[in-house]
């Protein structure tokens, strides 16, 4: 099952190539602890536009949270299941560039205003009205390195200094001058994009250069750029030694920033970008409001972070855990009293045994996350989201000329429940193929309303939530999630997504072996997510780069 789920990601035509690489790869292995990691050809380096969060986090990490980041960001694009893969394909339009220029201007102005400048400049100009080259040089070199994730080249430094000098002369202000220099760094594609640089690997083949590796690791673990210590490790070569690499990865995993990285990863994997603007009809679901929506998203991320990072629990138990956190508005949804802790914060809560609420799929975040249906639930969409986002199983789109007559007329007197209405799909051979994949899972979740509240009936008829998953019968969502928890596809999916998220692309031929090794290790390690992140971040394959001709993308 594990192998099958991996093969799906490769083009059939490349199977022979993958096998050839696999055969070659078996001869040499890297020891990555419990499991020897086969050497693979890896894939191409990437060129990724920073996401809105990554941009904002970069500014906050480099300059401090008090420097505001204004303007509108271009919308992200999801490709092959992840925004992180879409980042490797998007461009910056003129409208987008206008916004980057505006941001650069305002960020520079804030950094160099009277209130802040002393914090960032390690020097004072001889006179504020005239250009002071050594002072400007030190400032631009320091922040250039942090923004670009590598030292400025001589050409870049010279250009920024020349611009600063001209602008200082014309404005009569040293600070306006270096502000222009800083602006030019902020508008550079070397900051707006993560540009991975490649070098020859002394052991043969190609690899990321040390700074690009630092950036890849840092965005994987923190969803933020490398800090000074990591850049120093790239500069002095220690990041290239196994011990030095592990030291940095362990340091970063011990940092509170790991939580933001884990939140970013699951927000991408579970498509939480769809929460932006998500709404439900106020007349049909009066309990729904932006507060409940935001709380639902946060509840789910809190549950994930607590289980995976704080408790260091088994990833698979996310499907079944009865532990979560409540606010007052979530308490109202569940009919659970929430004490003072939940009024301005979060109250830890464990649902009693036998409760219909257990695991991520029964949390309102999953249940409400369907922007295309504001007035009802769609078992098909819910089933598709489980297949695609939790199990990495793409569901083909419906045929363009499909006739949906009578399928979901909620006022249909003959077909009162979604199951009765969807039976039409199952009876139509054109539809049945895909709906057999999606609907049984979605129908098992029909006991939960579009905002996540439990319901036993729809239109006066008791909901039948039973079904079968891969031949195993279940009576309700709790039994289904128990089956999903033990499905190899569920754990293999998170491994695949972590790797794709880290490298910013679909996997290439030869990386299948790497995935298998990571899966084996994940299982041996009791499915600890921390262990998975560490294994990927310290993996030799994570830094390997394929020659461009082998690239799939």
């Amino acid at each position, binding site marked *: 099952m594990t192998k099958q789920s991996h093969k799906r990601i490769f083009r059939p035509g490349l199977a022979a190539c993958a096998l050839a690489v696999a055969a070659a790869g078996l001869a040499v292995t890297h020891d990555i602890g419990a499991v020897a990691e086969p050497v693979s050809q890896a894939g*191409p380096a990437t*060129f990724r536009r920073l996401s809105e969060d990554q941009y904002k986090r970069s500014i906050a990490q480099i300059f401090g949270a008090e420097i505001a980041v204004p303007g509108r960001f271009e919308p992200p694009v999801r490709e092959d299941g992840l925004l992180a893969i879409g980042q490797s394909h998007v461009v910056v*339009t*003129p409208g987008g560039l206008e916004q980057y220029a505006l941001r650069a201007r305002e960020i520079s102005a804030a950094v160099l205003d009277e209130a802040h400048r002393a914090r960032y400049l390690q020097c004072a100009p001889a006179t504020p009205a005239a250009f002071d080259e050594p002072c400007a040089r030190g400032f631009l070199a320091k922040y250039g390195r942090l923004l670009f994730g590598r030292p400025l080249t001589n050409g*870049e430094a010279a250009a920024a200094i020349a611009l600063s000098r001209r602008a200082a002369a014309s*404005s*009569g202000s040293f600070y306006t001058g270096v502000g222009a220099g800083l602006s030019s760094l902020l508008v550079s594609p070397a900051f*707006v994009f993560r540009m991975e640089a490649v070098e020859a690997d002394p052991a043969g083949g190609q690899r990321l250069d040390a700074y690009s590796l630092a950036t890849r690791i840092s965005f994987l673990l923190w969803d933020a750029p490398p800090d000074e210590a990591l850049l120093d490790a790239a500069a002095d070569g220690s990041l290239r030694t196994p011990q030095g690499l592990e030291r940095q990865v362990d340091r970063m995993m011990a940092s509170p920033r790991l939580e933001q990285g884990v939140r970013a990863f699951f927000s991408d994997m579970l498509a939480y970008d769809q929460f932006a*603007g998500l709404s439900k009809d106020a007349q049909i679901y009066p309990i729904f409001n932006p507060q409940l929506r935001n709380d639902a998203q946060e509840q789910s991320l809190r549950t994930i972070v607590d289980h995976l990072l704080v408790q260091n629990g088994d990833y698979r138990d996310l499907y079944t855990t009865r532990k979560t956190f409540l606010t007052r508005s979530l308490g109202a949804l569940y009919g659970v009293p929430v004490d003072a802790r939940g009024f301005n914060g979060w109250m830890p809560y464990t649902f009693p045994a036998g409760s219909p609420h257990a695991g991520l799929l029964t949390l309102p975040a999953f249940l409400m996350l369907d922007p*295309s249906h504001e007035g009802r639930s769609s078992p098909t969409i819910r089933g598709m989201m489980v297949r695609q986002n939790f199990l990495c199983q793409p569901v083909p789109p419906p045929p363009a000329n499909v006739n949906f007559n009578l399928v979901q007329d909620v006022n249909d007197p003959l077909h009162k429940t979604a199951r009765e209405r969807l039976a039409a799909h199952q009876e139509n051979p054109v539809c049945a193929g895909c709906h057999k994949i999606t609907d049984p899972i979605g129908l098992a979740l029909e006991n939960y309303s579009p905002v996540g509240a439990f319901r036993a009936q729809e239109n006066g008829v008791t909901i039948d939530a039973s079904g079968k998953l891969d031949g195993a019968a279940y009576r309700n969502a709790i039994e289904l999630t128990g089956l999903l928890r033990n499905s190899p596809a569920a754990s293999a999916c998170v491994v695949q997504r972590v790797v794709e998220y880290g490298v910013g692309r679909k996997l290439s031929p030869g990386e299948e072996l790497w995935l298998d090794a990571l899966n084996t290790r994940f299982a041996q390690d009791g499915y600890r997510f921390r262990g998975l992140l560490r294994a990927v971040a310290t993996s030799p394959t994570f830094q390997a780069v394929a020659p461009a001709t082998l690239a799939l993308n």
Partner: protein
Amino acid sequence: MSRWNRRNVLRGAVNGAAVTVALPFLDCFLDGNGEALAATGAPIPTRFGTWFWGCGINEKRFYPDQVGKDFAFKTETKALAPFKERVTVFSGFNVILDGQPNLTHWSGIMGALTGTTPNRGGNGVGTSLAPTLDCLVADHIAAGTRFKSLQVACTGQSSVSYSMRAGNTVNSSEVDPVALYKRLFGPEFQDPNSGKFTPDPGIMLQQSVLSSVKDSRDELMRGVGAADRARLDQYFTSVREVEQQLAVQLQPPAPAEACAIPKAPAAVELGTTWEDATKMHDRLTDLMVMALACNQTRVFHVALSAAVSNLRKAGQSVALHELTHEEPIDPKLGYQVEATYFLEQSMDVFASLLRKMEAVREGTGTLLDHSLILGLSESNLAKLHTLESLPMIVAGTAGGKWKQGQHISGKGDTTSRVGLTIQQALGMPVGSWGTGANATSRAISEVT
């Protein structure tokens, strides 16, 4: 531009003290014929826009029964009756799939707007293999305006836009009137009729910054793989375009007779109900029409909804897209009553834009006369995602270069013929357009 060379002005604007140039304020901006501005001798510019609504039509209620000039609007187009002499209805023009799959709610709109059926996408999003018509037109007619084009969407999502170059990145939409107002009429706006012009040294500085970024191009291009070079190159193209935008800001603006700076709009609720979206359309197009009149842009794109339209009536459990697929066809009426509510009223909204453009007087005509607006949807019958007889309506006369007042049947020809004809009417040197089965060199002679 020579006088306002960036470095000269930087030198001139010492200590931030700007040079102010007084311009003669003219009582009458126009020449004797009323078709050119006396101050500059330039003709009144032609504008182009695309206006999109999601989920198609009921063709029997939409297309007139008669072709030619003597036709009567049907129920779904009756809102356009007051504009009969200034619109052309096209029926029988198809997006030809040409061996590609029918990517739902994507093949139709991209096929019609790019002349090339896409090979990746579906459910209203995807990749385009060629630029959309508005981008092509903007390359040709946008010189000298502050914004090459403007995109707006009425349901709150900036990703809803059917304006894009080849690739997967849309020209994202403005969705908030307050933000759009700030961008258009904020502190950097130069009133074309103020009679005063002050080149802003801050803009010079911004130009210097972009120029410095551009200087790093060659070094950075060497550092990326072949596949990513085009994306990096697009970045520098965008830098150049913003530089040109800034250059416009350093020129005294040509007077614009009809330009009246609108009042700053109040914050407005974003939403996907019909009421919210149409209110939003009203606010956004108020600003956009004035952006055209004030010569801030000449090209625009309006998306009333996404192709997979999530418009719904307040309190209704199902949105338009789901209705088109799931609502039974009324056996007596022969169409889906609930879905049709939205489709029929979409033309009212289109007509509201035409009314606003007609209300702007320019020379002896109106802004509408000096424009071409292509209204279209992504399918004919959304229920089945049909691409035959894709609904397309062209309004305006492009300054007299387009003969309106007709219903023209394409008899199964490609929609590219409409796109080609628009480009030629706008004076673009294009002899053929589209690819594969959607390639054409036959403009529609009835309108030009």
